């Protein structure tokens, strides 16, 4: 029985033990027993080479020898196709502002640990090896002796310590520590054993530290070179006033954000060029609107080699050309001016155009395997204030009728190039949480059934064919689409036609993104649409927004989520019993570390979602695509498409190479 008091307890338990879920399904790390890193780094297999341009510098005395620049045991990367050739420039395109994830997804993913290219496991990266004790309360990392920053200074635990003590534990810079670092909201204790060994010690188990470190946000520990960043802290720099004055900053926090900060637009990471880095290429042009071209050049101290011992990366330079709009990028791709890219250029509409032009442009496709549960999920707002609409939307026969009325195959053939399968908002086949009935129920195009269910719902049609609601008026409502998703607006056009045929009229409202979000937040929307979430087991449990009301992104029942979390906005919106059941199960899921039990509970939740048919889906697939030139090698033919796995960085861009003439 869920009362007010133990609802709050449930909520607290959910939130604070929230993290345990990720561990089990991602890597099964909570199986009792000590964990060690899967691959130990091997010593370099012999005498390796370096890029010719670097050899010139070595001979001129401007750079130390290769053996001195590499760590004692560099990371060995196995090339996808073959050992590469040094040289060349990799051209990509970027928007004028707020496109910094482009950097992270290509040249900026060097964390302590990382995802394997197939996203199936976590492997060492900066850390040569690591151990986790059986309780998951102690994580020990071993760095690589001899590894250096891009300016030649050694990378040691001093840098990790600086990050931990002076950035994370400094409340002015970090108001809340990252979730993956904490366990029950508490930060660990950092124990530094020597220059290359450190341990995080937790009082309570932390199941997701490794996974958190492998996500893009997990780059934090190694983004703050002590020897460079200390000049920006009053604690280390008594003369900081001079720096403040030179830059015209009002206080040191402002200067920190402008020069050292790493989060979102306008912060220092991609703007301040004096920052040493561990990435394969070093930035030479700031991304601050001052140049139409962002250039990265090879890092002479990069600490990875190929299987022959040759220092990576193969490619000399990476150049991002600034283009004002995504449409203007298309001719450049067609003309072969882009060497390898997917972001901003891979709209569904352009696929045929690129396909026809492959021979002339000298490129081919690579596949981005999307396992999004749906291309579009239609959310009827079950918490809407209007009592008439609330009654209509909450009627399950109404939703079933609407679902049967949609001709999904027509949408697939017209808008998805014939590639797709009719599907509800459910995890995809061949994934852990696949439930065939949940995915296929009510997906047949059957207007007769549709009419039957709408009649069953009690909304009969009048002489003109419009169905009348409980208030005696024809049923009509608005479905909102943000203007950033034109594909969804097109699909809604078909849905509108289909629903009109069974007597339900909708108004498709394409609106500016900020209005879409504002309406959503204020619970003013009658219905809206959004793409589906991922089927990866970790994400199904971490982001179950379409299965139970999970925060503001559950467009179909955000207020029920507020009610459960005890927020004032949700006070008047008592959810129905199945929702309460789902939350009960979710709370249990959060508080167990047993993989099998977690999966069992999640399947129960999915079963309730299936039976109650909260939202309506259209189809899954097709896969996305990217463009790669024919002379650009070592790119895998397909890779997962996601953000937590920042496509395409985990496929080892440092071993991409360009055929030299």
């Amino acid at each position: 029985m869920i009362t007010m008091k133990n609802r709050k307890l449930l909520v607290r338990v959910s939130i604070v033990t929230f993290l345990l879920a990720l561990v089990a399904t991602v890597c099964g790390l909570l199986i009792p027993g000590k964990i060690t890193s899967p691959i130990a780094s091997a010593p370099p297999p012999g005498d390796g080479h370096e890029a010719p341009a670097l050899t010139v510098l070595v001979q001129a005395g401007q750079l130390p020898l290769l053996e001195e620049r590499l760590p004692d045991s560099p990371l060995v990367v196995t090339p996808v196709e073959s050992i590469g050739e040094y040289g060349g420039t990799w051209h990509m395109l970027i928007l004028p502002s707020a496109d910094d994830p482009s950097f992270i997804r290509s040249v900026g993913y060097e964390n302590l640990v990382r995802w394997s290219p197939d996203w199936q496991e976590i492997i060492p990266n900066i850390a040569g090896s690591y151990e986790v004790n059986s309780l998951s309360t102690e994580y020990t990392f071993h760095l690589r002796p001899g590894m250096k920053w891009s300016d030649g200074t050694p990378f040691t635990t001093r840098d990790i310590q600086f990050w931990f003590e002076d950035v994370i534990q400094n409340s002015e810079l970090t108001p809340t520590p990252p979730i993956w670092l904490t366990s029950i909201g508490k930060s660990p204790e950092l124990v530094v054993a020597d220059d290359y060994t450190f341990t995080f010690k937790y009082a309570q188990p932390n199941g997701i530290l490794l996974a958190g470190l492998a996500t893009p946000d997990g780059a934090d520990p190694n983004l703050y070179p002590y020897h460079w960043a200390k000049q920006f802290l009053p604690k280390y720099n008594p003369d900081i006033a001079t720096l403040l004055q030179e830059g015209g900053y009002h206080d040191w926090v402002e200067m920190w954000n402008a020069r050292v900060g790493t989060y979102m637009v306008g912060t220092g990471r991609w703007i301040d060029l004096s920052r040493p880095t561990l990435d394969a290429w070093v930035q030479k042009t700031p991304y601050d609107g001052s140049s139409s071209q962002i250039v990265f050049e090879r890092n002479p101290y990069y600490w990875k080699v190929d299987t022959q011992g040759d220092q990576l990366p193969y490619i000399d330079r990476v150049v991002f050309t600034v283009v004002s709009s995504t449409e203007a990028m298309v001719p450049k791709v067609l003309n072969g001016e882009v060497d390898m890219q997917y972001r901003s250029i891979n709209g569904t509409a352009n696929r045929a155009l690129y396909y026809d032009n492959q021979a002339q442009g000298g490129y081919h496709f690579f596949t981005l395997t999307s396992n999004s549960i749906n291309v579009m999920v239609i959310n009827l707002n079950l918490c809407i204030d209007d009592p008439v609409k609330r009654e209509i939307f909450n009627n399950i026969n109404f939703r079933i009728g609407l679902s049967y009325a949609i001709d999904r195959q027509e949408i697939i053939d017209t808008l998805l190039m014939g590639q797709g399968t009719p599907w509800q908002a459910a995890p995809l086949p061949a994934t852990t949480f696949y439930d065939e009935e949940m995915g296929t129920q009510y997906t047949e195009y059957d207007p007769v059934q549709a009419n039957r269910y709408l009649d069953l719902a009690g909304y009969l049609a009048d002489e003109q064919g419009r169905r009348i609601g409980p208030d005696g008026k024809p049923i009509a409502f608005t479905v909102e689409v943000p203007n950033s998703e034109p594909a969804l607006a097109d699909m809604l056009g078909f849905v509108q036609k289909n629903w009109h045929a069974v007597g339900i009229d909708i108004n498709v409202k394409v609106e500016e993104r900020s209005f879409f979000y504002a309406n959503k937040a204020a619970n003013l929307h009658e219905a809206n649409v959004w793409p589906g979430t991922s089927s990866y087991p970790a994400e199904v449990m971490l982001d179950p927004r379409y299965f139970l009301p999970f925060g503001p992104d559950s467009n179909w029942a955000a207020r029920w989520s507020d009610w459960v979390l005890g927020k004032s906005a949700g006070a008047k919106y008592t959810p129905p019993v199945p929702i309460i059941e789902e939350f009960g199960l979710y709370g249990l899921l959060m508080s167990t570390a047993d993989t099998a039990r977690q999966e069992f509970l999640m399947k129960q939740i999915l079963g309730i979602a299936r039976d109650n048919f909260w939202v309506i889906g259209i189809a899954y697939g097709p896969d996305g695509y990217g463009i790669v030139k024919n002379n650009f090698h070592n790119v895998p033919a397909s890779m997962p498409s996601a953000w937590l796995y920042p496509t395409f960085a985990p496929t080892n861009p440092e071993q991409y190479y360009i055929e030299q003439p």
Partner: protein
Amino acid sequence: MKGMTSFLARRLLWMIPTLWVVSIVSFFIIQLPPGDFVSAMAAQYEASGEKVNQAALDALRTRYGLDQPVSVQYIKWMGGVLHSDFGYSFMYNRPVSQLIWERLGLTVTISILTLLVTWVLAFPVGIYSAVRRYTPGDYLFTFLGFVGLSVPGFMIALILMWVSFRYFHVTLGGLFSEAFIDAPWSWARIGDMLQHLWAPLVILGTSGTAGMIRILRANLSDELQKPYVVTARSKGLSETHLLLKYPLRAALNPFVSTIGWSLPEMVSGETIVAIVLSLPTCGPLLLQALLAQDMYLAGAFILLLSALTVVGTLISDLLLAWLDPRIQMG
């Protein structure tokens, strides 16, 4: 002359409250879309599939002072402006003045060149059309004029881009080739820029030229019917002389009165065409700033454009008074 001085003084004094009201209105309008810069950026990231950290967003919001009421933000901004501190752009984390200044040179250059191209083309053709009305030449220019006038600039830009790619395998866009983008200024760099500039000049010039030709043709033909022209002809003045001395001046009236507005247009540039062609000018920057609710950048821009408009209108009026002795000030 006394009337002129007092007129000038009055106009200059009126500029101050006008600009002040404009600054208030524009600052508030920039804030009108729901949310603020931080939420606009977060929405943009989410739309491309990245997940954002709510706590970090809230911290940013406090940092930028976006959680304070709009009036407080305005007062802070105005205070800065009066000390010639136009604030920082949130998007680029650089002083607004720096961002605008960087692009100003280029924008003004393109605008002035476009204006020159337009005038150089429009005047002779307009005069010809007026004097030789209903001849085949006139019909041809009329036709071209209507095409240029009715087809939007960005449409011409897109067609030009397509033709250039399809038949010449050259992608139009940008202002420099890759080699010259960050190179220091040299004759080679200027040459490269001119090679890229012809496209924007043609596109932007086309619509402007068309408009001018039609107006000039209409006005001049009206003037040429007037009695004083007949008188002058009968007194023995050559056709060219009598054409250029009086009727042309009268026909220029509408141009000069709108010349003032070319001043702010010089700065904002032609936004849509600049976006299509990826030109690093002021127009696209203003659009981005407005979409992202980058308050200080957008606010400074609008203030600058308003000031230029007001000044430009004043210059227009003065020019008109000089050009047309029939006009009296005050």
